């Protein structure tokens, strides 16, 4: 008697597999929640519910096939892409990376101070507060300042942590009418002035001391030995108005809605750090209106088009030429064929790096070969001269890609019925005429979708540019942010990730632009190839 049929084994296997997946995700979810990452934890929880629902019920049979791939695709492609796209609506760059509360806390921590213009400047005598008048002087106590406001005839004693008003009758005066001592009464300490040599001895201590003042947020600092000035944090924050005031210049900084507190009288004067703020379409508008952004962008865009177009044309032309040459069964055809496929079979990352070395001006094999042919030493700056660097990128890409076009062209040539070309030659067409009028049009009809997808691929050929030239040569002295060989994607990568001047919001805006261009091209290509027709 068969206890387990094939179906039962499959059911048991399914239960084990699904439970295992749920257990792993459950563990992850638990530690996510325990670490306080609610977003990821909830995401995992939703995924678990979906898995249980789809595999233990019969809600949707297609979903049983889609779910694993779908979950991976959503987690590692859709979510990052959506996040990136949404960043295009933000002011998000170096200096604007924090959240607003974080930025506010940092701004309030600022330790820049300024003299308070509304407080008087006092006259100052330095001395010691402990001990009675005429006692032996203390070795080194806190410096005690006798602060005088002659305009109101008021006297104060101040140390780093104490501020006391002294009645005038306790103050003793010199013959010149200057205060030179304070008598002790009750809690009121006695005060004795420094001997002249003590001023120099305690100079450092004096400079480091902030004397207490009786208004909140303010303190006094000695200026020289005879003036006491009142200071406060230069920037003060008013939480009700959500505004900072610079007490030195009187300027008021308000939230400008673009991620910074900006001077109400001069919009360009902003406080740093700022924060990530929603600016909606500002990044897109800047693409077209800010010349420092739009000019490099336009030149990079043009070069990207030139690069992608020229690449496809040269790769296709050379590939087709070889396909035609090797169409006839000549001797050693298999050998030629194998050699020509080699560049395509090599891991492209290795090839690009090898070419980078070969294009070296002083040691590179390319210059050596040219020198050998020319008969004398030739130094071409392949990677540092803009025009040569562009030619080099095209040359290397031709090398990388022509075997692919050889392969597909030779396949397409075989697919063209021989009767057509035979009929043409019977009708008296020359070889060239047959090719131009019959073979090429048919070929183009078959290969256009592949040409278009190749164009779309090269439009975003990041590895080639990044590893071969790094987008350079860059006009560093001219301050150009775009290198001569930078294509849109490498340029955008630089904007998003270059240390110190990252501008993620702008980069996201450009990447949406790229997405639209590539999607338009590809959709056109798909329409040509009519791939989607079968699902209509």
């Amino acid at each position: 008697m068969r206890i387990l049929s094939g179906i039962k084994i499959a059911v048991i296997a399914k239960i084990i597999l699904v439970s295992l997946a749920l257990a792993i995700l459950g563990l992850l979810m638990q530690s996510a929640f325990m670490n306080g990452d609610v977003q990821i934890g909830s995401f995992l929880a939703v995924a678990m519910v979906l898995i249980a629902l789809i595999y233990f019920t019969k809600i949707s049979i297609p979903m049983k096939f889609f779910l694993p791939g779908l979950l991976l695709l959503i987690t590692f492609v859709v979510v990052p892409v959506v996040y990136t796209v949404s960043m295009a609506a933000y002011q998000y760059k170096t200096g604007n990376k924090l959240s607003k509360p974080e930025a506010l806390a940092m701004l309030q921590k600022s330790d820049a101070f300024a003299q308070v213009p509304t407080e008087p400047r006092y006259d100052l005598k330095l001395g010691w507060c402990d001990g009675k008048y005429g006692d032996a002087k203390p070795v080194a106590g806190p410096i005690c300042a006798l602060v005088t406001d002659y305009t109101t005839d008021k006297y104060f004693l101040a140390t780093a942590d104490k501020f006391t008003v002294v009645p005038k009758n306790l103050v003793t005066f010199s013959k010149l009418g200057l205060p030179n001592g304070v008598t002790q009464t009750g809690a009121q300490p006695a005060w004795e002035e420094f001997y002249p040599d003590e001023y120099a001895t305690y100079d450092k201590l004096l400079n480091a001391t902030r004397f207490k003042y009786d208004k909140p947020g303010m303190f006094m600092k000695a200026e020289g030995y005879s003036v006491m000035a009142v200071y406060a944090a230069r920037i003060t924050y008013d939480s009700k108005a959500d505004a900072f005031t610079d007490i030195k210049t009187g300027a008021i900084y308000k939230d400008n809605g673009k991620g910074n507190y900006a001077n109400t009288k001069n919009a360009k004067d902003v406080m740093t750090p700022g924060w990530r703020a929603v600016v909606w379409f500002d990044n897109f508008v800047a693409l077209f209106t800010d010349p420092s952004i739009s000019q490099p962008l336009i030149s990079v865009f043009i070069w990207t088009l030139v690069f992608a177009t020229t690449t496809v044309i040269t790769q296709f032309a050379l590939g087709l030429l070889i396909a035609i040459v090797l169409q006839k069964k000549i001797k050693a055809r298999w050998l030629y064929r194998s050699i020509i496929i080699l560049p395509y079979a090599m891991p492209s990352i290795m090839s690009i790096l090898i070419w980078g070395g070969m294009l070296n001006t002083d040691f590179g094999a390319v210059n050596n070969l040219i020198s050998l042919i020319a008969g004398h030493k030739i130094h071409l700056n392949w990677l540092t001269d803009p025009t040569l660097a562009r030619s080099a990128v095209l040359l290397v890409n031709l090398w990388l890609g022509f075997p692919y076009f050889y392969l597909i062209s030779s396949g397409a040539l075989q697919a063209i019925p021989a009767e057509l070309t035979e009929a043409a030659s019977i009708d008296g067409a020359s070889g060239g005429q047959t090719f131009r009028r019959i073979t090429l049009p048919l070929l183009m009809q078959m290969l256009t979708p592949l040409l278009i997808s190749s164009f779309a691929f090269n439009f975003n050929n990041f590895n080639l540019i990044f590893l071969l030239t790094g987008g350079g040569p860059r006009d560093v002295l001219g301050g150009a942010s775009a290198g001569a060989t930078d294509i849109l994607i490498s340029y955008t990568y630089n904007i998003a990730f270059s240390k110190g001047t990252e501008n993620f919001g702008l980069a996201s805006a450009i990447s949406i632009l790229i997405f639209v261009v590539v999607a338009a091209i590809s959709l056109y290509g798909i329409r040509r190839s009519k791939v989607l027709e079968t699902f209509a």
Partner: protein
Amino acid sequence: MIIIKWIKESFWRHLVAWAVCFFALFPLYMIVLTSFKKTTSLQVNSFLPTGFSWANFNSLLNNPNIPYFRWMYNSVVIATIVSVVSVFIGAASAFAFSRLRFRGKKTGIQALLLIQMFPSVLALSAVYVIMDRVHTFAPAIGLGTQGGLILVYLGGAMGVNIWLLKGFVDSIPLELDEAARVDGASPMQIYWRIFLPLASPVLAVVTLLSFIGTFNEYILASLFLSDINSRTIAVGLQSFISGEFESNWGPFAAGSILTSVPIVVVFLSLQRYIISGLTAGSVKG
């Protein structure tokens, strides 16, 4: 007369083929030449071999500071896991897209196609942030681990693989699974009993393509894996010529050859299948 005819019909073909072969072989020849030199520099004094030395291979394989085998092992393990798992998972979706009927199928395919067109390099920092957060509660699969890199690769491979596999699956005749359906088989049974065995050669080819693609990946691997022992071969070899090891072109050349030979051999032996995969659905006239 025969010679003239030969020149007219074949000679020029050989001439062109020779020129193109020279173009194709030149960099490969240079890398072989560099790898067998005594010095590690890039400089070539002569295009003909002047001496023969294993020095560069030696330093690549025996220098304890250059964990070549470790890198190679990492790359092979990562690429194998990614290609096998992603094709296994992708095949199910491709089967559903190609064989099942359900609402929203067309939208699904279009969405899949669209999402692939977003320049993925730019979603890097979002992936980075996510995996950095994952690292705080699951150190085994977060940022800086190969496990995390594999997960990210799997996600990235889904779109391409489903699309590629769908192209193949569409070309597998419908009759067999229709017959099975008539006999009362469920979609799951058709998938496991009929589709997978039928499609296995196709799956093998896509696995291979996916393997090569993962093997060639540079930017994510360089962002993710900072520890020298966890690097992939692409990142490791790149570091030879970009400062960290000074310009070690000799060992780099040796490493490139050792790395490329197996891939080239597999590629050439399976080229017929690979090419049909690359052009699936388009060169049909």
